[in-house]
């Protein structure tokens, strides 16, 4: 037994801080460069060049954008509800980042005799030299995703602007409808994995055909539905109604400027990274694959981010009622059916 603080080994604190810093830096960099990658990628898909002035290949563009927004004037509309207006960007941004606390980047590693999972949120099992991941990871992610909605709804409501209000309304309706279908799709994973711990869910998916999405046809459909619903939940094309530029100017963030706008912008991309990471964890075998675990995980996440951008370059936008219909009348019954089908499958092929 090594040195202990408050009954917990020192290694617990050290790894905790190290993991937090590493993941935060990773997510922050990914978010910054997702904006660059999106502009560059969509640029090339649309026979443009994309950013190229700031740094080689425009690589410093995210920093330049950040600086620019930082120096812009802070505007709070006179009619806005000041407190809610100021807090909304934070409410949108923070949940997007802290979802990452439970996502496993790799398998457990042994450090100084302790087994430590590569996942921020973890608890020390006092007897067996092991640090365990928390066992409600999926629920935590669902909870955080729901909190993020409030940021946008508050922003829309507090701006006291008509376009913002419409954007906020759209957003709340949209996120609630798609959360249900996404949640039901996750139940498919629970049925197979029989655990809520993300670490264990991934640990079970060894080998290509061990990935949850390839387990059976129902899981395959469920995985795709989950990803589509996730896109809807984070307002990505073709579900980017809350900020549909051609309809609502900028939707909920019409009245926002400067860093408050930057926060919404970061939240959007952080959400995209989170959703891709969650999809990877739940359906695409997390860290499993031919490369070192962390590399596998990151590669899969980046692959999904690429898909998000590709979709954006290809598809038009849904209309509000069509989007609701898709959520309630197509995805919800479909996931319920998939759950039944999956149950039968698990009984027949245990």
């Amino acid at each position, binding site marked *: 037994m090594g040195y202990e603080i408050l009954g917990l080994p020192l290694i617990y604190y050290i790894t905790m801080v190290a993991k937090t810093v590493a993941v935060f830096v990773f997510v922050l960099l990914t978010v910054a460069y997702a904006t660059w990658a999106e502009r560059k990628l*969509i640029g090339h*898909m*649309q*026979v*443009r060049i994309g950013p190229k002035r700031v740094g080689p290949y425009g690589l410093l563009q995210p920093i330049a954008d950040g600086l620019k927004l930082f120096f812009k004037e802070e505007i709070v509309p006179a009619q806005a509800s000041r407190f809610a207006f100021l807090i909304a960007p934070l409410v949108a941004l923070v949940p997007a980042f802290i979802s990452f606390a439970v996502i496993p980047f790799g398998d457990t590693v042994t450090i100084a005799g302790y087994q430590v999972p590569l996942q921020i949120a973890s608890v020390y099992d006092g007897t067996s030299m092991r640090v365990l991941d928390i066992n409600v990871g999926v629920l935590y992610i669902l909870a955080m995703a729901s909190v993020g909605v409030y940021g946008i709804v508050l922003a829309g409501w507090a701006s006291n602007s*008509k*376009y913002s209000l*419409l954007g906020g*309304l*759209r957003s709340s309706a949209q996120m609630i409808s798609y959360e249900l279908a996404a949640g039901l799709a996750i139940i498919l994973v629970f049925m197979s994995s029989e655990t809520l711990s993300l670490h264990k869910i991934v640990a079970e998916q060894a080998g290509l055909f061990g990935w949850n999405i390839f387990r059976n046809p129902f899981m395959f459909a469920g995985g795709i539905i989950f990803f589509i619903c996730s896109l809807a939940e984070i307002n990505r*094309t*073709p579900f*980017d*109604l809350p900020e*549909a*530029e*051609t*309809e*609502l*100017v900028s939707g909920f963030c019409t009245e926002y400027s400067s860093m408050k706008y930057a926060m919404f912008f970061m939240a959007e991309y952080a959400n995209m990274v989170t959703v891709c990471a969650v999809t990877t964890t739940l359906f695409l075998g997390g860290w499993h694959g031919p490369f070192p675990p962390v590399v596998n995980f990151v590669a899969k996440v980046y692959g999904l981010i690429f898909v998000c951008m590709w979709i*954006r*370059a*290809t*598809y*038009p*936008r*849904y*209309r*509000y*009622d*069509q989007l609701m219909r898709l959520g309630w009348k197509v995805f919800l019954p479909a996931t319920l059916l998939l759950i039944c089908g999956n149950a039968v499958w698990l009984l027949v092929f245990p």
Partner: protein
Amino acid sequence: MATTETMTVNMGPQHPSTHGVLRLVIELDGEIIRKITPHIGYLHRGVEKISEHRTYHQTIPLTDRLDYLAPMSNNLGYVLAVEKLLGIEVPERAQTIRVIMAELTRIKSHLVWIACHALDIGAMTVFLYAFREREKIMDIYEKISGARMTSNYFRVGGLSKEPYAGFERDVQEIIDTFPGHFDTYEGLLTENTIWKQRTIGNGVISAEDAVDYGITGPALRGSGVDWDLRRDNPYSGYENYAFQVPTGTNCDTYDRYKVRMVELRESVKIVKQALDALKPGPILADDPQVCYPPKESVYNTIEGLIHHFKIASEGFPVPEGEVYQGIEAPKGELGYYLVSDGGTKPYRMRIRPPSFVNLGAIEKMAKGAMIADLVAVIGTLDIVLGEIDR
């Protein structure tokens, strides 16, 4: 008991999808539109009034700025009206080049339409593809007239100058490559589920209503009315070309989309036929009272110099009378009504812009729909504020 009230939203004049400075005051019940009141006039420049103080030639550059996405069509309608009043015959070569340029203009205008329409509905990529192709036509514009948009190329009696060397090669390249590009757009949109969901059943206007509202152009044909001035009231030699006039059946945005996509291909066919029929010859009518003499004649002969001076300084007199000339512009029937009192300036010029009349039906088409539908309707009407406000 709780009461509800409608919300009045001011859409425009600065709004991303009002295609310029259109202002729509809309009454919303949630996202449902209860009432639309278009407010126009933000781009009013008084073209009709200014033209009363300018010679007939000096008005041509003003017409460039009506529908600035289709300048040569505007030029064409105007010069045809003046020529009708003068009763002069335009040489065949000039007519053929006019047809080529007018059809290229139609393609150019429709390319902007598909670009903006798709962008409004959220399909970003088509926008840039269409603008890439439009640039090819802009290049021809620039080479032939010196300007990318404000062409000012046609003259009363013919053309301002002979097309540049290599004009035929450039046009041939467009004939060869554009149908493939149209396939690309259609590949992205025509069978796209979301595109179909957004456009089918959107902005429905029946054939009777469309006629009652005076809608013309692709918007009218999308409602199933088989009417195209190029075929039904030919001008500038359109009777010599074989082309289809597509019509829709469901009167909705999707049908109007398909009508315009067919029109794009038909325009390419017309350009091809016209290019094949293009023969050397004069490009200005042989009427020294109206048409500028050739430069050699201005520099070397006293008659040429006098004619040039007279036309440039005071214009040419036009016989007393009035005339209406309508043409099938990309957006619908573009009409010029000219009244002459026998002088060198029109007594009155009235322009019938297709966008203005088509815009009148917007409430009919979008009432009871959602904001997103209104944006699609603005796109499908293909309006340009330059000619609405004049």
